[in-house]
């Protein structure tokens, strides 16, 4: 199943990236920018597909290219009056927190969390982001039952919540 999904994603990548790259090039961007924006667009597309909130009336290729154009405008803070987006942004429905600038604090915390509990984060990711069932998660992470995986999930969430709280306290102390 995962292999099929990986192949499907590779096919989309192969079919779409050249068009996206040409679009970004026309806008004045380089290969690195094209790749970064395309990856962001794919992340948005995959999230919406997973959440069943994907409402597209165009091809996947056109949808991804549309998102890339919006991300380009956002990234380079161009005046949207000069580059009309034809309500595209609204139609494509980019997640609200996607543009949130990576605040230094979140980035620092993330690095710390990655080092401290990668397994925990992977488990949380599987449930909250990939929206897998607890049975599936129990199998993947080698828990005996879905119930024990659920208990571990909450322990992990509590751990992350504690890190957030401690980071806040630390920042208050040094402010």
């Amino acid at each position, binding site marked *: 199943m995962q292999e099929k999904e990986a192949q499907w994603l590779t096919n989309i990548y192969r079919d779409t990236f050249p068009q996206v790259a040409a679009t970004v090039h026309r806008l004045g961007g380089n290969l690195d920018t094209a*790749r970064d924006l395309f990856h962001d667009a794919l*992340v948005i597309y995959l999230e919406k597909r997973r959440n069943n909130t994907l409402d597209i009336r165009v091809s996947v290729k056109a949808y991804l290219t549309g998102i890339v154009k919006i991300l380009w405008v956002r990234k380079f803070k161009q005046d949207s009056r000069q580059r009309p987006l034809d309500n595209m942004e609204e139609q494509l429905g980019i997640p609200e927190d996607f543009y949130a600038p990576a605040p230094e604090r979140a980035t620092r915390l993330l690095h710390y969390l990655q080092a401290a509990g990668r397994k925990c984060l992977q488990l949380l990711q599987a449930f909250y982001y990939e929206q897998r069932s607890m049975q599936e998660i129990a199998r993947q992470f080698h828990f005996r039952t879905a119930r024990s995986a659920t208990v571990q999930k909450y322990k992990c*969430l509590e751990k992350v919540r504690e890190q*957030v709280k401690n980071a806040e306290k630390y920042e208050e102390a040094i402010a």
Partner: protein
Amino acid sequence: MHEIQEIDQYILREMSVEDQLVFQARMLSCRDLQEKAAHQLQAHALVRRFAREAQREKLAAIYARLWETDAAFRSEITAIFQ
């Protein structure tokens, strides 16, 4: 576990409207619960951020593999940025 689970249900909107109102009223009268809910919401945001980073890493690996193994892809891309 009950409290963290309950906060999760609130955050994920898995509560009935009545339960949401009761929960909000409890938060108003209990600063500790309010803080825990706020931190838990941020924890969810961090998990999303982590997951997005992990997804970007997978996509970078796909690009690298295509670049290495698919000569037509490589030349198409190279021609665009020449």
